[in-house]
């Protein structure tokens, strides 16, 4: 197993046709994946996740920058020399080999004994529910099955790093849950370095030790689940991480005595800033900010406590999963609030809501960065 380091990595695709435009798929990426760490690469479609993975795999040239496995610069090494295992986004199964042969191919190439190969393949087939199709050819499998074969083929080996590119995108919810457990257990057992690409945040957050969030070819933030959730560096991460998404609104700075407030535009809601935020806002000295607050962090309170609460009318109530989602209104402003389902409320009621000030996120309008990191 190896520690993988990316230093100022760029990927620029040269135009495929004359007059075509260059595509910058990855820009100035710096990322360290520790030995044995489970890192997820998370981001919307087209943000450069696959490109990053393919550069680490040695399938794509690195336009600029360096990639290290432990202390060895691997830019000029082939996939074989890097000893990576990869599950491809498009599966890339060998069409002329059975499922069994597909999974055993990387082992055969490494001259493992027949017995050993058999044991590994059988074991993986059981884990990934492929026992029934071991002797089929890929063309006869469903999309989800093909994907699992591709995953099993990658996991059959003991490489310096596993690279998994959206390995569960074609599985149904239940299967996905089981597969996640298997992958997690495997990681736990062999303590392997894993890089896992996905655009499903739930998958990323539940599997990975740390998550690297990417957007538009750039790394936005790397961190554990809690770090991303509690301290998003910028507007994109704040918006992208968390279900349902964070309430984001413009807020005007208002001052009363020594206390700073942000007044949400279009409403009478004023949010109290704690000492840390107050200091930052004073230093930045701007009139407007973007204010974010998660639906989970707005709490309906029955007993009026005055300070750090606001009034709002319940517009409507939806039930999502095991929670109920309220849409509340104050002036022209609507906010989403997550409440427990036994919280009994009807549309039209006016309630008081409170919020923990340390959970109010404030972002600079121009740079879209959290004021805490500015």
């Amino acid at each position: 197993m190896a520690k993988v380091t990316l230093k100022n990595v760029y990927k620029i695709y040269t135009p495929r046709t004359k007059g075509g435009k260059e595509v910058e798929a990855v820009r100035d990426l710096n990322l360290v994946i520790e030995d044995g760490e489970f890192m997820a690469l998370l981001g919307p479609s087209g943000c450069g996740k696959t490109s990053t993975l393919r550069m680490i795999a040695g399938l794509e040239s690195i336009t600029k920058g360096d990639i290290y496995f432990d202390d060895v610069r691997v830019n000029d090494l082939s996939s074989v020399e890097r000893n990576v295992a990869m599950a491809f986004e498009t599966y890339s199964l060998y069409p002329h080999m059975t499922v069994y042969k597909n999974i055993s191919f990387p082992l055969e190439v490494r001259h493992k004994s027949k017995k050993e190969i058999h044991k590994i393949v059988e074991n993986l087939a059981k884990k990934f529910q492929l026992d029934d199709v071991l002797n089929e050819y890929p063309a006869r499998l469903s999309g989800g099955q093909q994907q699992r074969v591709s995953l099993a083929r990658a996991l059959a080996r003991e490489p310096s790093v596993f690279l998994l590119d959206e390995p569960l995108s074609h599985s149904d919810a239940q299967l996905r849950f089981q597969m996640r457990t298997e992958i997690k257990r495997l990681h736990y057992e062999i303590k392997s370095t894993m890089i896992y690409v996905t655009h499903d945040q739930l998958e990323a957050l539940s599997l990975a030790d740390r998550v690297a969030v990417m957007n538009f070819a750039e790394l936005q933030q790397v961190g554990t689940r809690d770090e991303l959730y509690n301290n998003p560096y910028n507007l994109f991460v704040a918006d992208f991480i968390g279900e349902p998404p964070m309430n984001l609104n413009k807020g005007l700075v208002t001052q009363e005595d020594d206390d700073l407030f942000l007044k949400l535009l279009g409403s009478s809601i004023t949010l109290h800033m704690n000492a840390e935020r107050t200091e930052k806002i004073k230093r930045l000295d701007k009139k407007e900010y973007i204010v974010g607050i998660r639906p989970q962090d707005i709490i309906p309170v029955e007993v009026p406590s005055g300070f750090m609460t606001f009034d709002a009318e319940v517009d409507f109530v939806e039930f999502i999963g095991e929670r109920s989602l309220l849409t509340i209104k104050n002036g022209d402003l609507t906010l989403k609030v997550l409440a427990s389902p036994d919280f009994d409320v009807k549309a039209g009621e006016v309630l008081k809501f409170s919020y923990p000030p340390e959970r109010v996120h404030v972002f600079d309008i121009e740079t879209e960065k959290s004021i805490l990191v500015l």
Partner: protein
Amino acid sequence: MSRKGEDILVKRYVPFLLVLPAFIVLFSVTIFPTIWSLYMSFHQYNPIIGKPVPVGWKNFNYILHWDRFQNSVVHLFYYLLFGVGIEMILGITVALLLYELIKSEKIRLLLLVLFIIPMMIPPSIVGTLWRFLLDPFSGVVNTILSMLHLPVVDWFGSKMALASLIIADIWEWTSLPLMIIYSGRVSLPQSVYEAAWVDGASQWTILRRITLPMLKELIAIALIIRFMDAYKFIDKVTVMTQGGPGGASELPSYLAYLVGAQQFNMGVASAMTWIIGLGSIIVIMLFVKFMKKVLKSQKIA
């Protein structure tokens, strides 16, 4: 079929009518020669001398014991082994090298066109051209050999005549397997190769375990097409050696042609064409088998 109302499918006979002209032509043109030559195979007949006389299996018996025919079969065997064999190996090698070594589309196309030229030249002209090139006295090949201080070769002597035919044939037809394999290689998915690199396969393993197996149906078809043509190999023999010297470069088809169209010994010639025809039916059946496989796999992919 489930479509309703006005539908050309309602008139089931329409597709049949469309096929009918082709069928009539091919059937009538093939049925007569088949019956005629089957009939003649069991007769002795020379149209100049007289009427057909029934002789039973005598023609077949004669042919199978005729040393010239036996020799021609041996020559055919050499031709298949060395001619078709080298064409296949060379074709596959060059096709894969072309794909691996040359990345520029333009240069690839240029080379493909160059490789195709021999196939576009009429076979009789290929024979003429090679007779000129290999001429033992004034030919450029021997000139080059002597410039390199190598012994010159008597290309149309009894030892080399068949080899010369084979060389001309290799020149003309290597491009066919080459083209088929090259097109097949181009259409193999790149992603499968990426998977193989990541899986740690060496170049040699990739060739042996990925490329060749995925191309095996196409290779079989190319081989069979070349095998079939072996029975048609007459033009170049006629132009280059006339089967000589002393029968050293005779092939079964050419011998049948000589016996029938030049010596007018229709009985023996017909029997010979039947033997040749039966030989080629096996090859045709193989072709059909692999063709179905390829067509099926193309529909899946």
